[in-house]
């Protein structure tokens, strides 16, 4: 259910729940040994 647009606390909770679900989809194993992004040089 969508939170009421005038209820900030409910909006924060809903946003956080979405972000946590997205984070859960980013597996740790897949990035084993991969450093964080560096910038344009990552294309090389």
């Amino acid at each position, binding site marked *: 259910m969508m939170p009421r*647009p*005038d*209820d*900030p606390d409910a*909006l*924060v909770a*809903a*946003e*956080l729940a*979405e*972000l*946590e679900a*997205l*984070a859960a*989809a*980013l597996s*740790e194993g*897949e*990035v084993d040994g*991969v*450093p*964080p*992004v*560096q*910038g*344009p*040089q*990552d*294309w090389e």
Partner: protein
Amino acid sequence: MSAVGPAAERVEAAIAATERLNPTLNAYLHVDLEGARAAAAEVDAIDAARGAIADAERRAGGSVGPARPLAGMPVCVKDIVDVAGMPTTAGAADWVRHPDEDATVVARLRAAGAVVVGKGNTNEFACGIDGRNPHKGDCRNPWDPARLSGGSSSGPATTVAAGMAAGAVGSDTSGSIRVPAALCGVVGIRPTRGLVPTDGVVPLAWSLDAVGPLARDVATAALLLDVLAGRPPAPAPRPEVGGLRLGIATALMDLAEEPVLDALGAAAAGLRGAGAAVVDCELPDLEHATGIHRIVQACEVAAAHAPWFERQRDRYAPGVRARIEAGYALSAETYLRAQRHRRLFTRAFAAAMNGLDAVLAPASPVLAPPIEAEEVTVRADRRPVRAALLSCVAPLSQLDCPIVTVPAGIREGLPVGLQLIGRPGSEALLLRIAAAVESNGGPIGPTSL
């Protein structure tokens, strides 16, 4: 009566358009018309003096340097970018700073002869994609004021499209140059990250923010980019695409409505006719990429707002506050994991571009939605406006590469924008392709308001 110079004429035209249209469009949040007139007079005086010196030098067998590249160009600066003598409000409620110094990009514009007319509207703290602003008033689309302009660089795109400025400076973190450029029918450039300095700009997300130009045509946008990057202006991009191999991002085309597809199909046909090979291109998982982007942005926007978050907390629009506050609850490990996945996505995208010179994609899946719309129909599904407008731009925003939006035609009385995505440092190539798209239909502004 004294003669009026060319800079004064250009600036007066922009001022006249501003006085006529800004009450409807709300594209400028702050203007300094007298300051603009004075700056234009100064540009004309300098040019007149240069002319006299040049005549004398020529008679003596010498020469003077080239004229300043933007002499007399009226420009709009997004209101997250510092302009000395003007307030920076970031489109926020009760948040303001009064800079004594120009941001580096503004200093470069002025040194090149540009005249700052005013500060352009923006979503609150550049946090939004629709051009709405509950504190300062919504910016309205110059093609139809009952429709969204797109954002967050809403004022820059609208002023340029409506003739209230000839060029503008915007910023793009998730699509904030590309979407308003598309919905307003102007050219916008998200440069390779690091090419254009971001000091003196209120940050949204450091590792994603890019400052770039908007203009009515490709040549002007290219010239502005060179000035913003602090390098000598290159000749105007020529519409030469013979021998290029261009990929159409089918996954993003599949997100778009029929009028957008029709215009982009015509643009692709024009590029084929000009000698480019245009083929389908499969990109890595864009839904996954959108997730990475959202986490990185949430963490970085929370950090950027930390110095004033508690003081500002109850002044943010609720949706903006939610996006910032949620970021505080994510861990450093989550942030870094997202940045590691971002690197993998970048590598996968680079691999997908093997054998291609650039990728073509819609900048927005829909024409400008009505200003009061909360949802739009996309491929028979109802989607929140924000999600729809972000869908074609946000996943590409983390690639650190240049992306140009160029008008690809008018459908149902509204402009359609095409994204051109290239490898880091390939702005000149993308602008050649953009010039070819433009040469098929020509620049489509200004609007007829």
